[in-house]
């Protein structure tokens, strides 16, 4: 197995939002798939202890995880080992069992996760987080301090109720010295598959306004697309299934912009 933990990981990107349910895990998964589609070696660290969604989104089921001399061996989604994943979901015997832990225990486990996974060589490690600005987020940062954190991508939906929370997350980044790589607006309009009418189900424009307000880069918008929701639901690779869709084009553009900003560092 691979040596070291984060030593051979070129870039570490946190995916954050103050708000729940905006699509952090979806965007993390899609960015990972897009980056892989573009030939990069990618890893995902899922530190959402209460609601680990990534294993389902990548169809990895409930594999057994084991340790080698350098730490936990991540789960690979394919034989070529192009996409690696470590999630708390893998440590739970019963997928319906709740992880009912208070802060200190969450902090301790995240510490292990961050330091003790044998990622090997990766171009990008994406870290999916739960919503908020609490124990998990502080734990991730404290443990990543020894390595480089390139920065964070913030996910929001267009609504004020969402951007209102993401503003606070931006403050969290500023206070903890995390560079804001940019803002992604998810659920950005719904195009009716029957008549092509666009409905702004979760309002409009909030992502760009937030970027302007806080002096951040606006990375782009991803629409509400039932084909994307279905892919995520079924753990299918949207990049492979619908590479010509405008949704994938949007995700691909975002991933390219992200990659460019990481590589010019």
């Amino acid at each position, binding site marked *: 197995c691979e040596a070291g933990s984060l030593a051979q990981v070129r870039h570490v990107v946190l995916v954050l939002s*103050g708000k*729940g349910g905006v699509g952090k895990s979806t965007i993390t998964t899609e960015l990972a798939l897009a980056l892989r589609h573009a030939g990069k070696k990618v890893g995902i660290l899922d530190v959402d202890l*209460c609601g680990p969604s990534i294993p389902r989104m990548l169809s990895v089921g409930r594999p057994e995880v084991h340790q080698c001399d350098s730490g936990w061996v991540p789960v690979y989604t394919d034989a070529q080992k192009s996409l690696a994943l470590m999630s708390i979901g893998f440590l739970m015997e019963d997928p*319906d069992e709740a992880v009912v832990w208070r802060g200190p225990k969450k*902090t301790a486990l995240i510490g292990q996760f961050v330091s003790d996974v044998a990622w090997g060589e990766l171009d990008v490690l994406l870290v999916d987080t739960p919503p908020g600005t609490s124990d998990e987020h502080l734990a991730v940062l404290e443990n990543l301090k020894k390595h480089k954190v390139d920065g964070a991508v913030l996910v929001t939906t267009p609504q004020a109720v969402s951007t209102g929370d993401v503003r606070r997350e931006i403050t969290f980044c500023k206070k903890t010295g995390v560079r804001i790589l940019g803002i992604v607006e998810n659920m950005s309009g719904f195009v009716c598959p029957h008549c092509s009418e666009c409905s702004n189900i979760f309002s409009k424009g909030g992502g760009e306004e937030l970027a302007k307000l806080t002096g951040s880069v606006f990375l782009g918008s991803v629409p509400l697309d039932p084909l994307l929701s279905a892919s995520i639901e079924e753990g299918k690779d949207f990049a492979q299934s619908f590479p010509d869709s405008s949704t994938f084009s949007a995700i691909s553009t975002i991933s390219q912009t992200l990659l460019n900003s990481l590589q010019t560092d």
Partner: protein
Amino acid sequence: SEEVPYCPGTSSEEAGKSASCQGCPNQQLCASGATKAPDPAIAEIGEKLSVVKHKILVLSGKGGVGKSTFSAHLAHALASDGTKEVALLDVDICGPSIPRIMGLEGEQVHQSGSGWSPVYVEDNLAVMSIGFLLGSPDDAVIWRGPKKNGMIKQFLRDVDWGQLDYLVIDTPPGTSDEHLSIVQYLSSTNVDGAVIITTPQEVSLQDVRKEIRFCQKVKLPIIGVVENMSGFVCPKCKNTSQIFPPSSGGAEKMCADLNLPLLGQVPLDPRIGRSCDEGKSFLQEVPDSPAAEVYRRIVQSEFISISHITFLS
């Protein structure tokens, strides 16, 4: 039997000693017995909230399914009966949405001899949230568990609610400090139960099942489940799209499997989000929307009499 990862609670007999305590930085402290003295606040809260007839928690394992939207509109619906005193408590410390949704952004709370005064939306509808304690919309509450727990204790013990018919408590997603604290601090009171919110897709349900397990573990009765974002009817062509597909049967199947009441299925309506952003009640703004109709039915049916409560055995 398989060890379940569960913090037994700092004041439990198992504190520091249970197998789940291995690896927790507080293990020694708990095992020493220092944390075991019962928190006097629990009895104080029991006393204080004895004049609250009904307490309803709104929970979900999953974020962004509409807990705050539901809590706010439940409070509005209950308060539409002018003879009832209603209060809405927001214990989402990191992401307090309730002030905006209730049209109370920028309001501040003040203290008096009898405690903190909540903010009133109507004469009979009071609201409390950490949002009212923050100076600016950019202020982040970067608190670890123990500090969040302290805030929740204060909200329950020190807010001058007065006599209430209904106290609705909105929570953040998950099964962590906030949820354990709310249940522990309310343990000397009677809580009617929890309404669980979900959306149709399995990605949500898989988290919601955990929340249901949590309720079971802490013996919190479940009043029922509400499925939000249940289909979208295009305003132009009137065709329905399942934007969040119920690929594993949605809340309907989950409720059937777990023997829980499905209180209602609320469709997606862009006007709901808009009302929330503008701090208005969509029950008042768009009373003839199908979503508003479902909400009214939910509140009027099993709910308002709270005489029909399901226990998970």
